[in-house]
């Protein structure tokens, strides 16, 4: 052992002599064949440092806590403490499921819970024993090492499980027997910690800034890293780079600058190789160093290294580095310009290829580099698409940042996004061979279309030359019209269109769309009409969402209203309330609710029908609420109704009590807890309106909002009683779904607080009515909710409110989470049970 390092514990050394085989010799040099081995041997350092801080007794206790219980008890007894036999029996089947890529795992939550449980088990007992008694776990971890089509969830789970297990020394050793990638990674982490700890130094003073004076342990580690950086095998270099990345990320002490100065020539040396090994890790390291507050970037030549790296890496590899550089707070202008040029290069290349005359195109100097103009820029479709998508994504990330480059080449980026969309859509007219080649590569490419539309949408926050903005709207319209636009592309086209309409210049003093946008709207509405009739439900759905957004923003504006009412859109939307797809029905409900709020359901030319039409929508929505077989449309109806009540919608304001009573009655019987919860939301709005809460109301409401009650409390509570709000709320209080019960509890507490401050109402605490209500509530709580409460008097309600332990109930509800489902056995059973039925649930998203 070298100086400064304690001898490893006898048990450890005895149990696992290393390949060097010279453990016992105190002066034998420490062999460093594997970082993992080093880490294992250096374990004592961790213990020593911590132990010295804690004192010997505490240190002994720590060791005891790990080892003694399992020595004291027979293995069977221990496994009872850590994992019961039922779980042990289920575990092999579960491991088999996790290892099988054909059987998708339910969701991340299950795996998170499973991991939590493993943490508890390992904290309570020995990880080693866990592995020994459940060999299926080791098999699972070994299985993960084989190259295969594993889900990232399971891979991540396995990595973290390995970390949990390897955190115990003996278990780490045990896992070392396998050729484990995870152990190597964990060893890397460990090295970083050891380096950090050894540099803190036992002497207490700051470590020397001369590398030669560093503790031997640190020198060994640094030596090992240097050796790895000189290696020819990429995995070794990758590991060394990762260790350094973690080091500079975690530790910002002055010695890290010394470390960087010492190692940076070796790192820079990597750039000389072709191809550059571990480029991804190299980028991570350089950014980690650049972000570290412990380093003075200018004095250690970092900027030069970064510039050099930018120019050496391929465009694909350089993208993340360029983005990272541009995000740095203080960085030389020249380097920022170079980084920005890297990000702009693919787009500039596209613009150049499509330019009619190869004159200046507003591209910043140096952007169109040699690699792009030399004729070998975008070799294959995959490479070209990947590069363009990454470039767009990076620029989109950069767009909202305050430190984004200035001046921002808005016109260039707009032009590039438009050109890319034209290329993908087939409407571009390339003038040269390069352009024609690009055209062939990108035609119909959905990935680029999506990325470019997202980017184009993001660019709407800035301005642009008028003719470019015209082109933007033209290309958006082209995409909205094209029969070849896929549903996802179309959705993004709708989103981008909405953003651009929002940003279109406003006429001073008027919130209406500007004349250009109104012209565009005239072209847009026929497209929207056609899309509302699409055979593809995703398209109908996103069209409705778009319509809702538009109506919400411009529903009150004359130009928009006129155009919309002249089209078939409101009528078609109404028809979609009966769409066979529940998502579309839900979106149609929301859209109709919005249209109706703005008085856009009927042409204003025929006011005599207005009342009838509006009524019929209310009836139609009530019909959906009471009969639709799917939850989404019913939830949407409840949201619309709540909004209508809040806005004092003309239809509702006519007879609010009847409306609320009807809705609450239907909602109380709904099987979907979200509908019932939304019912409570509606009840709360009504309650607030009745008892006089300040509220927002729609500026277009036909009648003024209900005035706050001024009379005595009993009078104020009468309407609540008449709409049977308490029947609904008390029933919800004992709802089998916790969120409903919680919401009801909150509502009643709010009401109680409200009434407590009021006076003048005699409570009838001991009247027979109160007793019968309390008896009924007890039956409800017991699960028998058949019997209604009947008509309640305000006095009785108040008495019952006071007698209920609402605070206690709220506490119980907050605590009584899913404790039943929390048992590990039921978790394992659930995971196994869901494996077979997963396929059916996957098609919900688009």
């Amino acid at each position: 052992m070298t100086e400064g390092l304690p001898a490893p514990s006898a048990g450890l050394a005895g149990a696992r002599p290393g390949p060097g085989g010279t453990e016992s010799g105190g002066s034998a040099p420490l062999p460093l064949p594997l970082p993992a081995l080093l880490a294992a041997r250096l374990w004592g350092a961790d213990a020593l440092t911590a132990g010295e801080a804690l004192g010997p007794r505490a240190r002994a206790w720590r060791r005891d806590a790990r080892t003694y219980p399992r020595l004291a008890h027979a293995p069977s007894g221990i496994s009872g403490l850590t994992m019961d036999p039922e779980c042990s029996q289920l575990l092999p089947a579960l491991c088999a499921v996790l290892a099988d890529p054909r059987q998708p795992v339910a969701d991340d939550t299950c795996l998170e819970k499973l991991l939590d449980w493993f943490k508890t088990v390992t904290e309570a007992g020995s990880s080693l024993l866990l592995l020994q008694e459940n060999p299926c776990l080791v098999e699972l971890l070994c299985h993960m090492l084989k190259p295969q089509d594993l889900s990232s969830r399971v891979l991540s789970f396995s990595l973290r499980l390995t970390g949990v297990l390897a955190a115990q020394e003996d278990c780490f050793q045990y896992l070392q027997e396998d050729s484990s990638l995870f152990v190597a990674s964990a060893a890397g982490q460990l090295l970083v910690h050891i380096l950090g700890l050894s540099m803190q130094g036992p002497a207490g003073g700051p470590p020397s800034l001369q590398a030669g004076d560093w503790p031997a342990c640190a020198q060994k580690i640094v030596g090992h890293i240097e050796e790895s950086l000189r290696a020819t095998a990429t995995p070794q270099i990758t590991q060394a780079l990762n260790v350094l990345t973690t080091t500079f990320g975690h530790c910002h002490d002055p010695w890290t600058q010394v470390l960087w100065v010492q190692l940076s020539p070796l790192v820079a040396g990597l750039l000389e190789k072709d191809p550059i090994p571990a480029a991804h890790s190299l980028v991570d390291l350089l950014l980690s160093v650049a972000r570290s507050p412990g380093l003075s970037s200018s004095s250690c030549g970092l900027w030069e290294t970064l510039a050099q790296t930018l120019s050496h890496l391929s465009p694909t590899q350089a993208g993340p580095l360029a983005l990272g550089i541009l995000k740095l707070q203080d960085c030389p202008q020249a380097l920022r310009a170079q980084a920005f040029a890297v990000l702009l290069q693919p787009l500039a290349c596209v613009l150049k290829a499509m330019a009619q005359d190869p004159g200046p195109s507003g591209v910043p100097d140096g952007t169109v580099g040699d690699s792009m103009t030399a004729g070998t820029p975008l070799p294959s479709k995959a490479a070209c698409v990947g590069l363009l998508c990454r470039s767009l994504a990076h620029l989109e990330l950069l767009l909202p940042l305050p430190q984004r480059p200035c001046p921002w080449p808005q016109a260039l980026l707009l032009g590039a996004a438009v050109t890319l969309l034209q290329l993908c859509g087939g409407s571009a007219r390339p003038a040269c061979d390069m352009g024609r080649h690009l055209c062939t590569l990108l035609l119909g490419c959905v990935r680029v279309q999506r990325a470019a539309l997202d980017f184009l949408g993001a660019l709407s926050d800035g301005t642009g030359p008028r003719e470019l903005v015209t082109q933007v709207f033209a290309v958006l319209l082209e995409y909205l019209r094209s029969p070849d636009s896929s549903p996802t592309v179309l959705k993004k086209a709708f989103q981008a269109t909405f953003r651009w309409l929002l940003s279109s210049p406003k006429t001073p003093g008027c919130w209406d769309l500007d004349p250009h946008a109104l012209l565009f709207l005239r072209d847009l509405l026929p497209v929207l009409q056609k899309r509302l009739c699409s055979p593809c439900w995703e398209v109908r759905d996103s069209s409705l969402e778009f319509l809702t957004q538009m109506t919400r923003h411009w529903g009150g504006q004359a130009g928009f209203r006129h155009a919309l009412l002249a089209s078939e859109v409101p009528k078609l939307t109404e028809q979609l309330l009966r769409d066979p797809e529940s998502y579309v029905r839900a979106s149609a409900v929301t859209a109709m609710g919005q249209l109706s709020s703005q008085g856009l359901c009927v042409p204003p030319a025929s006011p005599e029908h207005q009342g009838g039409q509006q009524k019929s929508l209310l009836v139609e929505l009530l019909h959906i609420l009471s009969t639709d077989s799917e939850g989404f449309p019913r939830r949407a109806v409840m949201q619309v109704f709540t909004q209508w009540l809040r806005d004092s919608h003309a239809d509702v304001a006519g007879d609010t009590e009847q409306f609320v009573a009807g809705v609450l009655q239907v909602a109380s019987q709904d099987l979907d807890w979200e509908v019932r919860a939304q019912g409570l939301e509606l009840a709360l709005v009504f309650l607030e309106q009745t008892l006089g809460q300040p509220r927002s109301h729609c500026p277009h409401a036909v009648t003024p909002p209900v005035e706050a009650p001024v009379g005595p409390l009993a009078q104020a509570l009468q309407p609540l009683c008449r709409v049977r709000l308490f029947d609904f709320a008390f029933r919800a209080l004992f709802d089998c779904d916790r969120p409903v019960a919680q919401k009801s509890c909150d509502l009643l507490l709010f009401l109680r607080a409200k009434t407590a401050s009021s006076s003048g109402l005699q409570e009838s605490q001991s009247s027979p009515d109160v007793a019968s209500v309390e008896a009924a509530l007890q039956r409800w709580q017991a699960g028998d909710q058949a019997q209604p409460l009947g008509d309640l008097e305000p006095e009785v309600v108040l008495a019952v409110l006071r007698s209920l332990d609402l605070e206690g109930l709220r506490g119980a509800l907050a605590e009584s989470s899913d404790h039943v489902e929390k048992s590990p056995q039921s978790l394992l059973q659930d995971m196994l049970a869901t494996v077979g039925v997963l396929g059916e649930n996957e098609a919900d998203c688009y």
Partner: protein
Amino acid sequence: MKLYCLSGHPTLPCNVLKFKSTTIMLDCGLDMTSTLNFLPLPLVQSPRLSNLPGWSLKDGNAFLDKELKECSGHVFVDSVPEFCLPETELIDLSTVDVILISNYHCMMALPYITEHTGFSGTVYATEPTVQIGRLLMEELVNFIERVPKAQSASLWKNKDIQRLLPSPLKDAVEVSTWRRCYTMQEVNSALSKIQLVGYSQKIELFGAVQVTPLSSGYALGSSNWIIQSHYEKVSYVSGSSLLTTHPQPMDQASLKNSDVLILTGLTQIPTANPDGMVGEFCSNLALTVRNGGNVLVPCYPSGVIYDLLECLYQYIDSAGLSNIPFYFISPVANSSLEFSQIFAEWLCHNKQTKVYLPEPPFPHAELIQTNKLKHYPSLHGDFSSDFRQPCVVFTGHPSLRFGDVVHFMELWGKSSLNTVIFTEPDFSYLEALAPYQPLAMKCIYCPIDTRLNFIQVSKLLKEVQPLHVVCPEQYTQPPPAQSHRMDLMIDCQPPAMSYRRAEVLALPFKRRYEKIEIMPELADALVPMEIKPGISLATVSAVLHTKDNKHILQPPPRPAQPTGGKKRKRATEDIPDCKVLKPLLSGSIPVEQFVQTLEKHGFSDIKVEDTAKGHIVLLQEAETLIQIEEDSTHIICDNDEMLRVRLRDLVLKFLQKF
């Protein structure tokens, strides 16, 4: 091997392949775009059409006003519509041995060929092709015959007069060869010459070549054809599709290793994706009907209509169109809908399995059962009493020049609530609409062409790797309207050979080998000699017997025994004179050793020159030249036979004999 190109229409091909001793016609498509120059044939008297003004020349000369009518600035021939036939002069069609039909759209010119050219061969086609082809012909004949037209215009065809006409009449090609439609009798006679074949069935043609139909995935019973001999393979790819619609999928693997691949029948609308178009079709249909308008779909009675009906079957409920009647009007509507259900073996796997459920393969059966789809032979009769609006009508002909569609155009054209949706890609919709202008009804162009596009062709060619590709000239450059779209052309190496109408192509490969059988007793008598490790040779003396394009080596007759004088004489007369064969030589001559040998034998003053193919040994003194090449040796000397023989023997010493 030659290819005679009789049609200029890339999707309605008609080519004749001369291969070995056979003459094979590949498809006989009929170009019906010529009918667009004619006035529509209204089923019900149309005052508008009958009152169109006659057309007169610029100088006011009105001698053509009976034949030509003017409508919205376009000039139409007022006559029975005529079709542009394949070339009949390029090759004597009576010499055609067989006609191979690839799909029902590519056989519409069959009666013109089989009934009027002296054709006496056989036609091969699959059963659905014949049955549905018959329906198409029947519909066509019916459409034209039920509206008798008194006059047949011919004055305008005079070349001198045609020059004076406005476009597009002025530019119409080969108008003198345009013909009126055939009769049902001719159709029946033509179809009687067809022999039915199944996919992958091998059909021998005169022992010379074998032809095989392969599934092409485009339509019920549609085929590509393999024409092969023992050493040559020609693939003929006509309308094919890789999309999953109703027919059996395309058989691509069997097209591999072709010497020549003749590629026709690609999509006519390469920029329109069929899926997108079907969506467009449904959206526009729903939009019109929801607004109270009617939808007219001009279509053929078979093909894409099955897919459209299937798509609508899934869509009408979701679009709230359950109460809207769908009408399918065609003289063959009933047969078409029923035929489609019985050709189970020709359907895609999905539909085939339905036969065993039992469930009809196509859902239009259910549409008919539930009265959502009704079909009628004509708009006269039951239809007029059932007719309810708004509705959707599927009817022919897609050219809008004849058939029930003409009536609906007249009926619905005035209202902007109605929509005509073009789904068939064969006719330019603007030209089809020209005689109905001005038109208030909406027009939507949703061409649904499921045939191969250029991306698919490029993948196909990479996959099957033919040595040479032959295709219509239209496929070798981007469409004129989209000259920048380099992706809209065939890109292969070596570049495809292109053809145009009335061209004869010499196909770029030579026949090198022929298979010859050896009779067993002759084979037994052979004595192979190994000349190189692994290679043995034997000389064969035999009689080559050729019959029905089969070649057989038979043992030579035995030399007659020298017995009697008379007999001997007769025998020599009968049997061909079998000379004693000279031995065959093999091996090569090492020049240096040869020169040494020459020197040993007294030749001096020897010079050796290297040539491109070998060497020249110059005997200057003897004024003699020995030219040694890989496969021949020549001795050139002046009338010195003795010297020549001496030198020959020296050369022979270096060669093996057997």
